[in-house]
């Protein structure tokens, strides 16, 4: 009986230890939730200039009912930067300057400055992969210019700039002039192709930002850019189009016909496998007409004519994109190598080693078939 009592008292005393809660607890008011990470080359050319942007929760929460009010309170976020040898080192250096800890679990955007990207982004890749805290759904973007300058742009539309940028990617279902890459996809592609990947490009406006076109990464290094139309062409081949507008002019009319793509299929096919491969890409594009010159009325004949014009236009867009990648950048970002390795493994074995040099001379024919499925509410 006495033993039991002693036992119970011991258990009760020990409960002090296991009811204190989590060992790793950091209270929410001791955390800064980093929304954006910016990585640049530092001025000295050696180190990295790493920036973190995080919201001031007090200001966001105070918007309603609170005494301060959100509107006139100035910026809702704080951007801090530091030069360091690595991203992780930068986050730790911040510990000397910030009253709270940085947390990356809710990071939405990772911005890489142009200059750093031209030198190579292996270190960023390694950080993203080894770090088990970073949000694998955050977007990876190459900034034309310095990532740091982009971090504290201000406007009234969204409370948080990180959300503003992340939400732009949601518009991909109506616009195909940029690419969308999150950490997951970034890792997958960069390891499959050994450093070749298309990343979205971002530029700074006066009070906003613009994501347009794509950055061409070859062997972890930034080689150059794809302009908006060229990016759309690449998206056609990659089957990445969820919505895109094509503009064509019917001869004799000043106002264009605007066509919205709703469905897009791209079928790659290997025709010949000589010294250099010969491909055919069949694009099956479906969509609807949203604008026409007021003077014309649509009938079957007219639709046929417009379809023909659209096919030529899409062919032209796609071909110019292929040309640029083949001739200027000489890098296969259109997954022709991936297609071969998956579907024609015996051919791929032959090309694999020297694919970098073979791809630029590969012959790629594009055949587009456009079907108009809708013409809006008038004819």
């Amino acid at each position, binding site marked *: 009986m006495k033993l039991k009592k002693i036992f119970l008292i011991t258990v009760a005393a020990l409960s002090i230890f296991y009811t204190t809660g989590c060992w790793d607890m950091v209270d929410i008011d001791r955390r800064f939730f980093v929304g954006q990470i910016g990585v640049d080359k530092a001025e000295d050319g050696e180190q990295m200039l790493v920036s973190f942007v995080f919201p001031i929760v007090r200001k966001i929460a105070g918007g309603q009912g609170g005494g301060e009010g959100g509107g006139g309170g100035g910026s809702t976020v704080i951007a801090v930067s530091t030069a360091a040898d690595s991203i992780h080192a930068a986050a730790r250096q911040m510990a000397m300057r910030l009253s709270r800890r940085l947390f990356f679990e809710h990071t939405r955007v990772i911005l890489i400055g142009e200059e750093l990207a031209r030198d190579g982004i292996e270190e960023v890749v390694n950080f993203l992969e080894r770090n088990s805290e970073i949000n694998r759904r955050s977007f990876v973007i190459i900034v034309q210019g310095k990532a740091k300058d982009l971090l504290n742009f201000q406007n009234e539309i969204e409370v948080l700039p990180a959300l503003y940028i992340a939400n732009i990617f949601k518009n991909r279902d109506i616009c195909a002039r940029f690419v969308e890459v999150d950490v*997951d996809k970034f*890792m997958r*592609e960069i390891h499959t192709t050994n450093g070749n990947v298309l990343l979205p490009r971002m530029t700074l406006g006066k009070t906003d930002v613009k994501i347009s076109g794509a950055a061409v990464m070859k062997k972890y290094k930034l080689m150059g850019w794809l302009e908006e139309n060229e990016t759309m062409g690449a998206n056609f081949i990659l089957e990445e189009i969820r919505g895109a507008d094509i503009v064509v002019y019917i001869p004799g009319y000043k106002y264009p016909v605007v066509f919205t793509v709703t469905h897009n299929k791209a079928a790659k096919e290997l025709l010949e496998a000589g010294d250099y491969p010969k491909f055919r890409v069949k694009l099956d594009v479906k969509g609807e007409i949203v604008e026409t010159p007021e003077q014309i009325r649509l009938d079957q004949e007219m639709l046929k004519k417009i379809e023909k014009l659209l096919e030529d236009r899409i062919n032209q867009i796609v071909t110019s994109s292929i040309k640029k990648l083949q001739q200027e950048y000489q890098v296969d970002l259109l997954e022709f190598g991936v297609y071969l390795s998956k579907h024609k493994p015996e051919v791929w074995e032959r090309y694999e080693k020297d694919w970098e040099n073979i791809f630029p001379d590969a012959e790629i024919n594009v055949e587009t078939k456009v079907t108009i499925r809708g013409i809006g509410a008038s004819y």
Partner: protein
Amino acid sequence: MLMDDDRISTAQAIALAINTILGVGLTTLPRELTKAAGPDCWIVVILGGIFALISALIIATVITRFNGKTFIEYTSSILGRPVGFLVGVLYAFYFVLSCAVVLRIFSSVIKNFVLESTPREFIIITLLVLSFYLIRHGLEPMARFMVINTPIWLITAVAAFLFTFNKADFSELLPFFRTPPDKLLFGSLSAALSMAGFEVLMVAGQGLNTTKHVYKIALVSIATVTASYLYLVVFVVSVLGVEETKMLLWPTVDVLRSITVPGGILERIEAPLITVWVIMVFTTLSPYYFSAAITIANIFNAKEFKIFVPLLFPWIYFLSMTPQNVLELESWLKFVGNLSIGFGFVIPFIMLIAGSLKARWGKSQ
């Protein structure tokens, strides 16, 4: 030895086997298989399942011959007392080592993804104490826990991976059959190794209500495990891609980290998913721990196995703290995997042959 009323039914035995096999291997399996066979990893799972089934059937046959004896008694009766003793010691050692490796992998994943600054000792001891508590009550309560637990992880896991459907690119599993046969075979072996755990029934077999349905237990549990692994590997590889899967230490966890429930209702749901996985690790650890204790009890012909549970505790703990880092742990894991060929296949096979010979010899006498 088990208490007389500490008996489990066939369904409970199936749950026990499945829950024992599925555990820490879930986090690393896709990496091992893609390293071995690239895009053919799913074929390797099926082949591995066949291997595992063969060894499970051998174990099942041995169990049917127990005739109310314990594992050690049976071994002694066919191979002689010293051999029986030796086999018992080896099995006990194997189970203890398995416990240690399971615990260590568990603590590595937890430390990396969830509790970064919690001491490893603490993570290991809490799980071990919990397991200690469960198995002290015997085989039947443990099996009952497995039965309750099974639908929880099954539903969660199936649902969780379905949310990755829009990210999955199943063409990552192309091309088919491009792996050379020797690599395919080697990969199947490592897949079969991750299905180790059925040998727990060798020692737990003495607690079966009836040995009539042992083959059914083997078939159903290995089939379920193979199906689960197949589902896992197909999704993980299609989401991450072959090359990325090869590079990550715990590819499954990384897939879980990228799951979003559509509509933006829930983001970052990996914490509850990892919790479910913790329970699965717990249900792998407990049977091994239990088996180690009962094997030793059988060696000493003890009436009660409970006293051996605390005796094993420090050994498991110290062994699990021995590896210095993840890479060393990997080599331990390989070692235990290779041991499981011996304990899950070779020794049962010898016992099968010896038992048959003895039976025939006995008849001709």
